[in-house]
C-alpha cells in the first residue's frame, strides 16, 4: 500500500490536520482494486432486476412481508455494492494503475462486458462505468431509493397490488442504475427509455381510475417526444464522429496537460475501436480535439457543407429536447403535475430524486460538448429560467399539496438547467443531490400528511398539523427551509452557487443572456420562497380547517417518520458539499473550491480546459474569483427571507383559508390556478389536430380505402368475374373444339398476313 503522505496531487490533505488527515487516509484506500470493482458493477443493476422479477412473478404467492424483504433487500444490496464502488472510484491510488483509465476518466471503475451488436464501424458494448459523477449518482439513487422503499412498505400496507408496486419500483431502480452506469449513449438510452416505461407503469398504478391511467399515458407520450430528440442527436453524433475520424489530422488533435496530440488521437481511435462512436471514451477525446476543427466544414458524407460547430449545436439542441422531456422543462413539462396521480413514494422517487435528474446527468456527461457551443448554453439557460419562473408562478395558486410540490420540482429543475447554461456543472449536480434529499423529504412528508388526514390532499382543508403530527412537521419544516435557501441548509449553497455563476459568467457572443437569466433566477427564487412558505403555512399552521375530513390527524408510524427524519438530516448535512473551504486542485493561486467541485474535478477537467482555451464562457477576472461572494449570499438570503415573510403575513393575517380573490389579483390567481392554460393550448394546437389526422387515417384511409375498396373490393371483383366466366364451361366438347378451330384459323390467317405483308 502506498503511504498516505505520498499523494502529491492532493495537497489539501498533506497540510497536516491530524485526525482529519488520518481518517481521510483510511477512507482513501479502497478495499478492492479497480478491476474487481469494475467486474462487480453488473451486480448493482442485477440485484434490483432480480428483485423486480421475483416480486412480480412470485409476489402474490410470497406474501407481503417477503415481498418487502426482497424489494428493500435488493436495493440495500445495490447500495452496499455502490458504496464499495464509490470508495474504489474515489481512491486515487488504485486508479493510477487502472488499465481502463483513459483521458479525463482517469478515475473510472470500468468493465466491458462484451459487444452487444456491431455493424461495420458502428459498435455498441455492454460497458459499465462508475466515475465520480456516476458514483455519486449511484449513492443517491440506491440510498434515497432504499429509504423510499422502506417508506413504501408502510405507505402501501393496505394496497392489494403491493407485489406489482414493488416489482415496478425495483425495475425502475435497475433502469435508472443502467442509465447512470452506462458507458455509451446507447446503453444510457436503454436506461432512459426504461425509466420512462417504469414511470408510466407507476403513475398509472391504480389503473382502475381512468384519469390516473390517462396521466400515465400522457407522461409516456410526452417523454417519447423527448426520446425522439435524443435519438436524432445520437444519429447526428454518429455522423459527426465519423466525419471527424476521417477528416482530422494529427495536428488538429489538441494537446492537453496530460497527453500530447498524438496520444489524444491514439486514445480517440482506441475509444472508437473498442467502444464504438457513441462510447464516452471516444467522445471525450473527440471533444479534446475539437477546438481546432470547429470552424471547418465537413467534407464528405451526409453532413457535407456544414461546420462541425453547427452540427454540434444542433446535436446539443436535440439533446436539450430529450432532456426537456425527461426533466420536465418547457415545453414538455406538462406531464409532471399530472404524474401526481401515482402513489406518493413514486412521486418522491421518480419525480423528485432520480428520473427527472436524468437530463441534467446527461448534460453533465456531455459537459465537454456543451461548453463548445455558447448558443446551446444560452438556449439551455433561457429554457431553464423560463421554466423555473412559470412553474413557480403556477405553484402560487395551486391547492393540491402534491401539485405544488410537483411544480416546485419543475422549477428547481429549471434552476439546474440554468446552472448548466452558465457552465457551472458541479453546481447543477450539487443541486441535483441536495434537491433529491429535500424534495424526497417534502414528498414523503406530504404522503405522511395525507395518510394522517384520511388521504386529504387539498391544503384548504388542512391546517393546524403542527401540534398533531409533530415529526412530520419537523421534517417538512426543515425541508422547506432547505428549498427556500436559508443558510445553513444545503439548498442555499447549491442554488446560490448557480445564481452567482449566472451573475458573473458571460457567454461569448451572447453577453447579456446570462444577465437576464440571472434576474429571472432571482425572481424564481423569490417565488420559491413564497409558495413553499404558503404551502407550509396553510398545511401546518393556524387552526384546523372547518371542513377537514378528520377532526384530529394522527401521526404516521415509525417506518415512515424514521425515513422522513433521515432525509431531513441529509438535507441539512448535504450542505457540507457546498461550502467552499477546500484548496483548489490547480494550486493556491486559484479560488477555493467546494467539496463537490473538488470531487468532480476529474469529470469536468476536459470542459474546464476547453473553456479556458476557447473562452466560450468568460469567467470573471481572478481577483473577483478569489473573493468569497458575501454580497451575493447576503442578497440571496434577503430574497428568501422576504419571500417567506410575505407569505407568512399574507396567509396568516390577510387571506382567509380557501379565499377566492377578486379584481386584478383574482384574475392572476385564476390564471395561475389554471396553469396558464398551457394544457388547454397544447390540446387545441397539437392534440386535437393529431386526433383528427388519425381519425382520417383510420376511418377514411384504413377502413374505407384499404379495407373496403382494396381488399374486399378485389375479392368482390374476382367473384363477379368468376361468375361471369363460369358460363364458358358448357360441358359441350364440340363447343370447345369450335373455339379451337376458330383460334387456329385466326392464327394461320395472321401468320399469312405477316408473310403476305412482306
Amino acid at each position: 500500500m502506498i503511504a498516505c503522505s505520498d499523494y502529491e496531487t492532493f495537497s489539501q490533505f498533506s497540510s497536516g490536520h491530524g485526525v482529519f488527515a488520518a481518517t481521510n487516509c483510511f477512507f482513501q484506500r479502497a478495499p478492492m482494486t479497480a478491476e474487481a470493482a469494475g467486474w462487480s458493477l453488473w451486480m448493482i443493476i442485477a440485484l434490483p432486476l432480480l428483485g423486480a422479477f421475483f416480486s412480480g412473478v412470485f409476489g402474490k404467492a410470497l406474501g407481503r412481508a417477503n415481498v418487502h424483504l426482497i424489494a428493500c433487500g435488493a436495493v440495500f444490496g445495490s447500495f452496499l455494492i455502490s458504496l464499495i464502488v464509490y470508495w474504489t472510484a474515489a481512491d486515487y491510488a488504485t486508479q493510477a494503475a487502472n488499465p481502463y483509465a483513459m483521458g479525463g476518466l482517469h478515475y473510472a471503475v470500468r468493465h466491458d462486458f462484451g459487444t452487444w451488436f456491431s455493424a461495420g464501424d458502428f459498435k455498441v458494448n455492454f460497458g459499465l462505468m462508475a466515475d465520480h459523477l456516476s458514483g455519486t449518482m449511484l449513492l443517491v439513487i440506491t440510498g434515497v431509493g432504499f429509504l423510499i422503499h422502506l417508506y413504501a412498505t408502510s405507505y402501501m400496507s393496505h394496497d392489494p397490488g403491493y407485489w406489482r408496486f414493488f416489482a415496478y419500483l425495483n425495475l425502475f431502480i435497475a433502469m435508472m442504475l443502467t442509465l447512470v452506469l452506462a458507458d455509451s449513449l446507447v446503453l444510457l438510452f436503454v436506461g432512459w427509455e426504461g425509466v420512462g416505461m417504469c414511470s408510466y407503469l407507476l403513475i398509472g398504478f391504480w389503473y382502475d381510475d381512468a384519469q390516473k391511467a390517462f396521466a400515465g399515458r400522457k407522461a409516456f407520450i410526452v417523454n417519447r417526444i423527448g426520446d425522439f430528440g435524443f435519438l436524432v442527436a445520437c444519429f447526428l453524433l454518429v455522423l459527426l464522429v465519423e466525419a471527424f475520424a476521417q477528416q482530422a489530422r494529427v495536428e488538429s488533435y489538441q494537446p492537453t496537460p496530460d497527453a500530447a496530440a498524438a496520444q489524444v488521437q491514439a486514445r480517440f481511435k482506441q475509444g472508437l475501436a473498442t467502444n464504438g462512436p457513441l462510447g464516452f471514451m471516444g467522445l471525450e477525446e473527440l471533444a479534446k480535439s475539437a477546438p481546432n476543427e470547429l470552424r471547418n466544414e465537413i467534407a464528405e458524407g451526409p453532413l457535407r457543407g456544414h461546420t462541425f460547430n453547427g452540427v454540434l449545436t444542433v446535436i446539443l439542441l436535440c439533446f436539450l429536447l430529450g432532456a426537456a422531456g425527461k426533466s420536465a422543462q418547457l415545453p414538455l413539462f406538462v406531464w409532471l403535475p399530472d404524474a401526481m396521480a401515482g402513489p406518493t413514494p413514486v412521486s418522491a422517487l421518480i419525480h423528485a430524486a432520480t428520473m427527472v435528474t436524468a437530463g441534467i446527468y446527461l448534460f453533465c456527461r456531455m459537459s465537454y460538448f456543451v461548453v463548445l457551443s455558447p448558443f446551446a448554453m444560452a438556449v439551455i439557460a433561457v429554457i431553464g429560467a423560463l421554466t423555473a419562473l412559470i412553474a413557480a408562478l403556477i405553484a402560487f395558486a395551486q391547492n393540491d399539496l402534491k401539485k405544488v410540490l410537483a411544480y416546485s420540482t419543475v422549477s428547481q429543475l429549471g434552476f439546474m438547467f440554468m446552472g448548466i447554461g452558465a457552465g457551472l456543472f458541479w453546481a447543477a449536480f450539487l443541486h441535483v443531490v441536495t434537491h433529491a434529499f429535500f424534495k424526497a423529504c417534502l414528498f414523503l412528508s406530504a404522503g405522511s400528511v395525507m395518510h394522517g388526514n384520511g388521504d386529504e390532499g387539498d391544503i384548504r382543508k388542512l391546517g393546524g398539523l403542527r401540534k398533531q403530527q409533530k415529526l412530520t412537521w419537523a421534517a417538512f419544516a426543515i425541508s422547506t427551509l432547505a428549498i427556500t435557501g436559508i443558510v445553513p441548509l444545503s439548498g442555499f449553497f447549491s442554488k446560490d452557487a448557480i445564481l452567482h455563476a449566472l451573475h458573473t459568467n458571460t457567454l461569448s457572443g451572447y453577453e447579456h443572456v446570462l444577465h437576464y437569466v440571472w434576474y429571472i433566477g432571482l425572481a424564481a427564487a423569490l417565488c420559491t420562497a413564497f409558495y413553499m412558505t404558503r404551502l407550509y403555512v396553510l398545511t401546518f399552521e393556524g387552526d384546523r380547517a372547518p371542513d377537514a375530513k378528520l377532526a384530529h390527524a394522527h401521526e404516521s408510524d415509525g417506518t415512515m417518520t424514521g425515513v422522513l427524519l433521515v432525509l431531513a438530516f441529509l438535507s441539512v448535512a448535504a450542505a457540507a458539499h457546498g461550502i467552499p473551504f477546500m484548496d483548489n486542485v490547480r494550486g493556491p493561486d486559484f479560488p477555493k473550491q467546494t467539496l463537490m467541485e473538488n470531487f468532480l474535478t476529474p469529470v469536468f477537467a476536459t470542459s474546464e480546459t476547453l473553456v479556458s482555451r476557447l473562452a466560450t464562457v468568460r469567467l470573471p477576472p481572478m481577483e473577483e474569483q478569489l473573493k468569497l461572494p458575501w454580497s451575493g449570499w447576503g442578497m440571496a438570503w434577503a430574497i428568501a427571507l422576504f419571500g417567506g415573510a410575505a407569505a407568512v403575513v399574507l396567509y396568516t393575517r390577510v387571506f382567509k383559508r380557501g379565499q377566492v380573490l377578486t379584481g386584478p389579483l383574482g384574475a392572476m390567481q385564476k390564471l395561475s390556478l389554471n396553469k396558464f392554460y398551457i394544457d388547454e393550448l397544447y390540446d387545441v394546437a397539437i392534440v386535437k389536430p393529431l386526433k383528427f389526422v388519425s381519425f382520417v387515417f383510420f376511418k377514411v384511409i384504413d377502413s374505407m380505402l384499404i379495407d373496403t375498396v382494396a381488399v374486399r373490393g378485389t375479392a368482390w371483383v374476382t367473384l363477379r368475374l368468376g361468375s361471369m366466366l363460369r358460363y364458358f364451361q358448357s360441358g359441350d366438347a364440340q363447343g370447345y373444339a369450335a373455339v379451337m378451330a376458330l383460334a387456329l384459323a385466326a392464327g394461320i390467317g395472321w401468320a399469312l398476313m405477316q408473310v403476305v405483308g412482306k
Partner: protein
Amino acid sequence: MTSIPTSYYLSLSAVLFCTGMLGVLIRRNALVVFMCVELMLNAANLTFLAFARERGDINGHISAFFIIAVAAAEAAVGLAIVIAVYRSRGTVNIDELQTMKH
C-alpha cells in the same frame, strides 16, 4: 418427271382436313366424330408424303408410318371408351353427354 405439282396434293389434303374438322364440329354421333378424326389424321399423312416426295426425304414416310401406328392405338382405346360410355349412359349422342357443365 411429275406433272402434278405438290401444291395440288397439299390442297387436297387441306380439303380433307377441313372436311374432317367440319364433321368433328357438326356431327352428334360420337362414332362418326371419331371417324372424322381419322380423316384428319389421313390428311396429315398426305401432307407428309407430298413434302417427302418433293424433297426426296424418306423421313416423311417414317412419320406417316408412326401416324398410322398411333392412330390405330388411339382408335382402339377411344372405341373402348365409347363402349364404356354407351354401357353407362345408354347413348353415344354427344349432345346428351354434357355432365361436365358448370
